[in-house]
């Protein structure tokens, strides 16, 4: 049973570009959350998707957007990349109610 899978594992982009990161949740999970983890820090909540809709959002600008597909997989899009967007982007999945999050190994994004 595959856990949470994310692609790509590493990515290098230039300032101003756009990026799309992908996530497949653990089998049986219908809720996907995205987190940003800067080097040496704890993850910061970006947003959560359930039933193909954004349900909660953290303190991130509109440059960060997402999507959830009918098969529960999800994408994170970041427009107009800034140097400060360089981080590890983590996807986590869970059943909606009363269950801990299961994380993927993340996508390491470097903006130059």
């Amino acid at each position, binding site marked *: 049973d595959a856990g949470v899978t994310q692609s790509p594992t590493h990515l290098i982009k230039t300032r101003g570009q756009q990026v799309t990161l992908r996530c497949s949740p653990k089998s049986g999970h219908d809720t996907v959350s995205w987190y940003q983890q800067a080097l040496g820090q704890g993850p910061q909540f970006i947003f959560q998707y359930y039933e193909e809709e954004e349900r909660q959002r953290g303190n991130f600008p509109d440059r960060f957007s997402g999507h959830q597909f009918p098969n529960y997989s999800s994408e994170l899009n970041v427009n107009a990349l800034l140097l400060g967007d360089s981080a590890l982007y983590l996807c986590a999945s869970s059943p909606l109610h009363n269950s801990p999050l299961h994380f993927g190994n*993340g996508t390491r994004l470097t903006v130059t």
Partner: protein
Amino acid sequence: GESVGLHLPTLSVQEGDNSIINCAYSNSASDYFIWYKQESGKGPQFIIDIRSNMDKRQGQRVTVLLNKTVKHLSLQIAATQPGDSAVYFCAENMDAGNNRKLIWGLGTSLAVNP
């Protein structure tokens, strides 16, 4: 503001000893707490969780203690092994039923010396 923080940023222990990692939280409305382990190059791995109606929960070699009076959380690892070396995060949550917004601390790096 409300935050979750850790008392000790680094911890070094001898293999076989017990480890205790501490965490303070300030949001009295939080009702669900989780410990995650993160190894280099990997995503956080769930260790153990506890709800606010409990003060202790045990897993395999790990115990989480919750003291709501002083807003303190600790993770105890028995017979620490080299494979336990990682960064440990505590995280808090409100309304754990529907809320997937975890608030994380900075992490404690645990180094196990053989």
